[in-house]
Every structure is written in structure tokens, then in C-alpha cells.
């Protein structure tokens, strides 16, 4: 680049130098160079102007000045994200003085294939590969000295991810992680943590390292564990797992938008309405509402879309622009096949194992291949544009991309084809990443040979691909919501407020679900008032039809056109609807053992909350209260961590202290997972004298009957001896078990996870959708979560469910069966076997013929494989195409001439 002005590369965390005129990363969107006004010599000192002269496209115009735009909008959504922990907090750990102390952001850039070191993990000091790395947790979190008293909720999990990725790069790395509590409370996080610890052998140390010293080229750490011993060790590199601070310009945003911030400068919201700020029309989503992980941010983002859509129902569609696709180039598609083959490096994912250039050159030798090229990241914005241009320039009418799995990226590439007037069905992928490079990492030659075979088979199929029509079908503008708890009611209300009829089906005889058992929310609001308001709004809403004591019997059809039968009091009712939302909730797990059920003094947290609601009188005789966390969870009856029992326990403990300060409250815990702002409650509980004792799974506290009372025996790690506490009340923090989801899962063909909750389509990017189009998911049915998260997820499900209703039309999969009337002998085998009753027998003259109902056909192909006269063919998977792939399977081919004669 011509720009003479070097600046620190902020994108790469200043580990690299770049120019004033730069593009941060090749896949950036928009993919255009950017001149940093603060650094540019021309802008600041009116000198230079080198780039403007050399730019052939004349795209640089220094006369441009920043302009103020006035935008008339109906609502403003604040999603500015989070800020960085201040530098002085990092300096306490030697960051800035010792080069090998890096932040977790820098670590991400070091392990990234397109990062400053191309993914080689090196020590910034001497560029050697580290052998021993330490991860320090809670840097700038849970730290009142820098007034970040909250927990950033994400650092524990990302530290384990980064450590795992590091082990993948350098298998013989020795990694230690220093935790206070291991807070991996997300869905599937605990299981992943356990797998990582076993597979990579991390040593997990429960201690907070106060400071770091440099001893010649290594870093010395000293720490004391809770059994009183002090340790020290030398490490080659230390990673500071920095927390999430409020955005730097939080106050500026608050003043401009006229909203209030909370004590930590994050946006002030309430658990009942987590996405609304203190000003109507201004909403918040993502980390600015509170430190959270990517799945929660995505959920809140969709949730906010629902609220804005409710508010601006009348304005919908008034200012939208619809994309128009160019007419399909029919002539080009009829010409004899001209195939373009693009072999992808995928950074180092494929190119690290497979000789991409060799595969590309091999593709060139295949018949009908008119163009071949290798691309660094074929799925990035710039590569897609390049592919589109090459297809147009070389008049290609078939495209084969050898890269990752069609399951994830086929729609993306097909969209590119559509944008240049080529039918999306004229496209085939060879999976040389997930099913080749990634799984044959130690056998590069075989992997390269396998890639060549897969490309040959893809090209063989591509030769026979035909354009397929993309029919659209109308949508019934009505939603069916299963479950009348907090989540179910919120979804129904939101869809109705967006202007669509909603049917709310509840199994029990009253609305409310688990919300009925709560008295206070974690942030002190009156849960019963929230419940009453919700029920009132739902019952009063003209567009919501409530069916109590009702259950779903059966559902058929597809997105936009479902027909369900709901049984209510013995008789069944037929309902037509466009979308369905699962909000069937979960149950409090009833524990076994711990004398539960044998003594009235042993209760669960929810039962305790009802007892507290009765007020001080219920605690007249209570002197000692002992709570035990993770009862039946994390490996006992339930495998998973239920995320909210710690916060619930601390909430109740504080309530008891409020009612009767002199009560002693003990809490036995494995990990105190009061993540996010709930950390303040945990600190407040400690200040108010609640005693927290850690236990390990092998030394669990036991509840023992003693005469008429009960006592708890346990091992106290700090004292290093057994203790016994006589208790008037033992409270078991039990987890959340899934409701009986089995039959609903079979009924709707929606898979369950091992723990029995419903499996979402994608943990991060599609958290409220399921594999079956048109069915959405929220609340405890998706997994254990607090009221705040359940409401956000319910709003998100409402937004996603409303999309097909708003569009009114749904495009149906082009892969359907085509029955050739002439050959069909009307035997009816296909019609009987079709699992989706998508084939009907019709009168054709005096004979009967089979005919496909394209809208219901799912493209499975059972009819085609059972037709005696081979009259049925599947779009995109015809017999000829599959035979071509089989022939291309063996390098020397097999009897092509026989093949021709058989047709």
C-alpha cells in the first residue's frame, strides 16, 4: 500500500502495524478500504495525497466532510455492545510491563488463522512457542476496587474455549486456569467444560492470583488455595480473561437518548421487561443491557425486533424496499454444461491438510469444466462477488464449490447464483472440509486424493443438474402457542400485538405456569403483580383465543399451512395456523435423598419462597437455615446445571435475613454461579453474614435425622475438618427438569437434547428456532433460565414467528418429486408409502395416475425408489445424477458405454 503513515492495528489489538489507509480484515463488510481521519497526513496536515493519485478508480475524494443526517424513525434500538476494562486494572497484573502478559482479545488474534501470526501461538516477547500458559479469571470483573462489582458471565467459558483451541494448535501445552467459581452455566456449557478438562487435561486451580512478577524470561505467579497452602509457579505466558465493561460512551448515549443507566453504567432495565429502557420507543439489546454471551445477545436482538414491530404495527411495510432478482437466463441454462469449479482454502482449515492447488488443477482436467480457481474464504463477501463475476464472464451455467458442508453454506452460494440470474439448483458442493480435511488431518495425501474424488463426483452430478422452479405458498396468518406460562403468555401477547390471531393452549386449568410459584423477582419486583398484569392483558386481548385444559393431539402440514387438532374436555377442535411456538416450560426437580419428603423441615427453594411469603411468623422457631446447592444436578439425577438456583438461593437467603436478621444461614455450594448483576446479591449476602461453604462432589454434605430435628454433616474445606450443623430448616436447591417432552417431540418431529430439553436449530445464530421450519421455541422448554431470559426469549420467538405471517408467502423447497404420467401405471405403491401423504391418485382419461402435491412433498424420495416402472424422479437427486456420482466414484470409471446403452 502506498500510504506512508504507519499506525497501530487496533483490530489486531495493536499486535501489528498497519497504515492510515487500511481494511481491517479481508472479509469485512463493507469490503472497502478506510482512511483513518485521525492519522491521515492529508486530513490533518494537508500534505501527502499519495493514495488519491494512485487510486485507479478515483474513489478517494478528500473534499468530503462529515455530514449530519436527520432520520425520521419510529423507534431507536441501542445495541452499542460493551467497553474494555480500564488499563490500570490490567497494569496490576503486569500488563504493559511484561510483554508475555496478554489479554484474551490478543489471544484470540494470536490463534486466528488470518491474525497477525497466521494462527501460530507465540510469546510476544521472543516469538517462541510457549510451553506453559496460565489463564487468570475475573480481571475487571467481580472487583469492587474498579467499581466492576458484577460478574461478566462469559469469561469462564471463553477461557476454556481459548485453552482448547490453544491445545489444538500446540497439543503438548500445559495449561492452568485460575478460577474463583467456574461459571459455565449456559446450555451445554458444563458438559463442554467437563469434556475439555478430561480431553486436554487442564489443571483447574481455585485461587485468585494477586500479582505477577517477571523472573528473566518467565512469569512467576503466587497463589493460596482454600486449604491454606500457598503455591508459586513459573509460566511462559499469562492470559488475562478480561471482563465486559460498560461502553465508553454510555453516558453520551444515555443523555442523547434520554434513558437511565444503572450503577455500573449499563442500561437500566427490569426483569419483567428486560428489553425496554426507561423511555418508550427506545429499546436495548445485547451487552449494553448487561454482560452476556452471544446466544443471549442474539435472543435479545430478535426480542427487541418484536417489541419495535408491536409498537409500529401500522407503519409496517410503508418504507421497505424489496430486492428484485434478474430474470433467469433460460438460454444459458439450455446450453451444454459449462461448469465452474471453485476450490476453497477456508484459511488454514482445508489448505492446512489438502493440497488445494492440486485439487484445483485436477478439476481442470474434468470434462465440461470451463473455469477453475482456488479461493481463500469462498463464503466471504468479496469472494462471493468475485465468483459471481467469473460466472458471468465465462458464461458458466453450473457451479461446483469444494469447501464446507452444504448443510450450512449451500443457501448462501445459491443466493449468489440467484443474484446473477442463474437458477439456484444448478449448484453442487463437495464437502472437503468437515468430512475430509478436518477428519483426516494426519493423512494429507489421502485427504487430497479424497478431495479430488469428491470434486469429480460433484462435477459428474453437476453435468446433469437441471433448473428447478421455486414455488411460493400462502401463509395462514394465525399462530398457535403451546403452554400458558410466563414465556407462553409473552409470546402470545407479542404476536397478537403485532396484529395476528393467536391461539394459546394451556394443559392446566389456569394460566401462569411456574410464575405462579414466585413472589419476588431477583431484582425485587413483585412477581405476582407481573403475573396478574400478564394474565389480564392476555385475557383482555381481542386477538388471543385461550384454550385451558387443552392439549395438542396432532399436527400436519408445513410452515405457513399447519393443521392441528387440539383436544379440550373430551372433544377435539381443528385449527389452521401458519406457525407454532413451543413454550411448554419445565418442572422443579423433586430430589431423592437428603431426607426430602421424610421431614417437614426439608424443603425446596420454591417451597421456601412460599414460606417466606407468609412473613416473619413462619420463622418464629427458626434459628439455623442450611441451604445445599446442586442437589440432583450436575451429574446426579440431572446432568446439566440449571443456571438460576444459585441466584434464587441468595435471593431467598437475603429475604430471610431481612425478616429475621439473627437467623444463621449457611449455603453449601459447588460453584456459586450468581452471574451478571446477581453478583451484587451474592456480595450483599456475604456482608449480611450468610456463610458460604464450598464442597466437592466426592465430599457432599448429608442431611441426617437427629431425634425430632435434623442436622447437616459436612467437611469444611477452610477448617480442614468435619462439621455438623443442627438445622431447623434445610433448603435443597434443586434444578429444573424438562417437562415430559417425548410425545410432543415425536408429534412435531422436533429433536430433544440428551438432557430432554428441545434442541434449537443453532445454539448461537438461531436460538429460538428448531430444525422444522415454522416451529419456534422459548422458555424453560429450551432450557433452564431466569424470568428475565425467558421473557427475552419469548419476545425473540414472537419476532421470528411473525416473519412468515408478515411476509404472507413462503417459498417451498424446490427438491420435490416429479411423476411422468406416460410411464406411470397407476399401481399406487408410491401413494401408500409416502410418509407425508404428498401423492394422490388422479383420474387421467379412464386410467388412474399418481400426482405429487408439491407443497407437502418433503423431497425424501421413497416414492422414486419404490416405483416399479421408474416413473418418478426427484428434483436435484434424479436417478441419472446418482448413477453419475456412482460412476465417478471409481477413478477409472466403469463401463460408461454400458451406462449409455441402458438409458
Amino acid at each position: 500500500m502506498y500510504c506512508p503513515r504507519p499506525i497501530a492495528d487496533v483490530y489486531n489489538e495493536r499486535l501489528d502495524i498497519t497504515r492510515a489507509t487500511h481494511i481491517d480484515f479481508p472479509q469485512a463488510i463493507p469490503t472497502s478500504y478506510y482512511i483513518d481521519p485521525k492519522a491521515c497526513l492529508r486530513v490533518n496536515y494537508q500534505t501527502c495525497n499519495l493514495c488519491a493519485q494512485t487510486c485507479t478508480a478515483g474513489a478517494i475524494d478528500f473534499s468530503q466532510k462529515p455530514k449530519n443526517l436527520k432520520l425520521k424513525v419510529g423507534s431507536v434500538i441501542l445495541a452499542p455492545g460493551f467497553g474494555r476494562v480500564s488499563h490500570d486494572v490490567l497494569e496490576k497484573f503486569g500488563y504493559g510491563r511484561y510483554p508475555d502478559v496478554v489479554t484474551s482479545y490478543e489471544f484470540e488474534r494470536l490463534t486466528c488463522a488470518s491474525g497477525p501470526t497466521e494462527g501460530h501461538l507465540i510469546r510476544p516477547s521472543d516469538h517462541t512457542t510457549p510451553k506453559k500458559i496460565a489463564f487468570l479469571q475475573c480481571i475487571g470483573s467481580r472487583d469492587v476496587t474498579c467499581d466492576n462489582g458484577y460478574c461478566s458471565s462469559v469469561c469462564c467459558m471463553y477461557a476454556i474455549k481459548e485453552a482448547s483451541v490453544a491445545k489444538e494448535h500446540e497439543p503438548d501445552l500445559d495449561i492452568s486456569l485460575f478460577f474463583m467459581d467456574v461459571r459455565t452455566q449456559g446450555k451445554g456449557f458444563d458438559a463442554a467444560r467437563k469434556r475439555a478438562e478430561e480431553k486436554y487435561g487442564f489443571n483447574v486451580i481455585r485461587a485468585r492470583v494477586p500479582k505477577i512478577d517477571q523472573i528473566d524470561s518467565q512469569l512467576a505467579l503466587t497463589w493460596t488455595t482454600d486449604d491454606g497452602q500457598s503455591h508459586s509457579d513459573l509460566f511462559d505466558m499469562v492470559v488475562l480473561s478480561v471482563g465486559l465493561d460498560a461502553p465508553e460512551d454510555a453516558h453520551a448515549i444515555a443523555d442523547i437518548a434520554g434513558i437511565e443507566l444503572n450503577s455500573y453504567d449499563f442500561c437500566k432495565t427490569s426483569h419483567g421487561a428486560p428489553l425496554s429502557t426507561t423511555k418508550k420507543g427506545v429499546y436495548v439489546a445485547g451487552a449494553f443491557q448487561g454482560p452476556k454471551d452471544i446466544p443471549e445477545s442474539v435472543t435479545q436482538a430478535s426480542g427487541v425486533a418484536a417489541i419495535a414491530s408491536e409498537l409500529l404495527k401500522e407503519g409496517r411495510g410503508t418504507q421497505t424496499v424489496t430486492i428484485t432478482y434478474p430474470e433467469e437466463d433460460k438460454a444459458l441454462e439450455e446450453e451444454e454444461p459449462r461448469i465452474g469449479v471453485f476450490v476453497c482454502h477456508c484459511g488454514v482449515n482445508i489448505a492446512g491438510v489438502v493440497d488445494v492447488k492440486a485439487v484445483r488443477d485436477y478439476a481442470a482436467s474434468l470434462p465440461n469444466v470451463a473455469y477453475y480457481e482456488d479461493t481463500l474464504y469462498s463464503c466471504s463477501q468479496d469472494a462471493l462477488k468475485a465468483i459471481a463475476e467469473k460466472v458471468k464472464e465465462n458464461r458458466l451455467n453450473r457451479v461446483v464449490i469444494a469447501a464446507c458442508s452444504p448443510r450450512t453454506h449451500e443457501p448462501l452460494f445459491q443466493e449468489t447464483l440467484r443474484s446473477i440470474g442463474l437458477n439456484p439448483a444448478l449448484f453442487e458442493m463437495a464437502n472437503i472440509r468437515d468430512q475430509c480435511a478436518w477428519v483426516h488431518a494426519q493423512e494429507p495425501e489421502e485427504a487430497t486424493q479424497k478431495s479430488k474424488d469428491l470434486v469429480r463426483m460433484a462435477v459428474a452430478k453437476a453435468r446433469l443438474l437441471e433448473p428447478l422452479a421455486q414455488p411460493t405458498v400462502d401463509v395462514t396468518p394465525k399462530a398457535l402457542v403451546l403452554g400458558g406460562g410466563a414465556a407462553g403468555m409473552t409470546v402470545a401477547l407479542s404476536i397478537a400485538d403485532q396484529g395476528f390471531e393467536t391461539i394459546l393452549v394451556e394443559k392446566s386449568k389456569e394460566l401462569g405456569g411456574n410464575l405462579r410459584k414466585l413472589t419476588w423477582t431477583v431484582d425485587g419486583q413483585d412477581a405476582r403483580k407481573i403475573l396478574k398484569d400478564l394474565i389480564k392483558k392476555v385475557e383482555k386481548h381481542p386477538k388471543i383465543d385461550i384454550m385451558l385444559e387443552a392439549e395438542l393431539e396432532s399436527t400436519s402440514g408445513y410452515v405457513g399451512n399447519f393443521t392441528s387438532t387440539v383436544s379440550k374436555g373430551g372433544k377435539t377442535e381443528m385449527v389452521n395456523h401458519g406457525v407454532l411456538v413451543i413454550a411448554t416450560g419445565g418442572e422443579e426437580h423433586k430430589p431423592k435423598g437428603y431426607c426430602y419428603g421424610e421431614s417437614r423441615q426439608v424443603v425446596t427453594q420454591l417451597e421456601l419462597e412460599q414460606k417466606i411469603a407468609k412473613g416473619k411468623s413462619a420463622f418464629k422457631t427458626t434459628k439455623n437455615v442450611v441451604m445445599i446447592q446442586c442437589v440432583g444436578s450436575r451429574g446426579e439425577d440431572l446432568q446439566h446445571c440449571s443456571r438460576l438456583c444459585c441466584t434464587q438461593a441468595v435471593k431467598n437467603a437475603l429475604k430471610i435475613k431481612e425478616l429475621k436478621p439473627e437467623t444463621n444461614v449457611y449455603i453449601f455450594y459447588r460453584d456459586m454461579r450468581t452471574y451478571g448483576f446477581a453478583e451484587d446479591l451474592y456480595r450483599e449476602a456475604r456482608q449480611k453474614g450468610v456463610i458460604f461453604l464450598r464442597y466437592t462432589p466426592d465430599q457432599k454434605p448429608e442431611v441426617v435425622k437427629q431425634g425430632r430435628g435434623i442436622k447437616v454433616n459436612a467437611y469444611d474445606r477452610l477448617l480442614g475438618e468435619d462439621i455438623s450443623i443442627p438445622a431447623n430448616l434445610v433448603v435443597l436447591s434443586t434444578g429444573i427438569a424438562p417437562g415430559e417432552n417425548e410425545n410432543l417431540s415425536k408429534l412435531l418431529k422436533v429433536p430433544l437434547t440428551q438432557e430432554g430439553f428441545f434442541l434449537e436449530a443453532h445454539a448461537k445464530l438461531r436460538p429460538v428456532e428448531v430444525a422444522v421450519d415454522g416451529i419456534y421455541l422459548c422458555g424453560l422448554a429450551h432450557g433452564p433460565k431466569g424470568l428475565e431470559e425467558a421473557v427475552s426469549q419469548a419476545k425473540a420467538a414472537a419476532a421470528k414467528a411473525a416473519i412468515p405471517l408478515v411476509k404472507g408467502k413462503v417459498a417451498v423447497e424446490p427438491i420435490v418429486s416429479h411423476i411422468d404420467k406416460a410411464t406411470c401405471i397407476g399401481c399406487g405403491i408410491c401413494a401408500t408409502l409416502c410418509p407425508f401423504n404428498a401423492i394422490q391418485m388422479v383420474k387421467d382419461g379412464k386410467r388412474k395416475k399418481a400426482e405429487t402435491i408439491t407443497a407437502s412433498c418433503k423431497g425424501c424420495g421413497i416414492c422414486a425408489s419404490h416405483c416399479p416402472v421408474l416413473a418418478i424422479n426427484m428434483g436435484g437427486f434424479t436417478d441419472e445424477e446418482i448413477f453419475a456420482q456412482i460412476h465417478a466414484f471409481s477413478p477409472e470409471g466403469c463401463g460408461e458405454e454400458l451406462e449409455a446403452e441402458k438409458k
Partner: protein
Amino acid sequence: MTQEGYNPRILGFFCHWCCYAAADSAGVSRYQYPPNVRVIRVMCTGRIDVRFILEAFKCGADGVFTGG
């Protein structure tokens, strides 16, 4: 009876929704397995015709793995 260096060629018919997805998830977690299988993706195992399997053997496959 296995000759050294004999590398069988196996053709796989994988259903897009289940087995193909299982193969992808094995890839994502970087499990390693022998590279002898070449995969043809079909929308469902129901699509597989006896002819395809016989044709596969005729075209030099030593084994066929149909995954649903």
C-alpha cells in the same frame, strides 16, 4: 487375510438430515477416522434403490455404507 497396503474403497449414501449431519459434527469436533469412504448425499435413506447399491459394487466399491 488382510493384505498389507490393501485400501478398501467404500461408497457411502448419507441422509442429509441425520448421518450427513453426524459426519459434519464429527468434523467440527475434529474426530479422526479412515479416509476410505466417499459420500453421496441423499435427502433420505428411503431414496436409496437396490439398483444403486448393486451399481456401486459393479463400479469397484468393496463395501457400501448406507447411513440414515
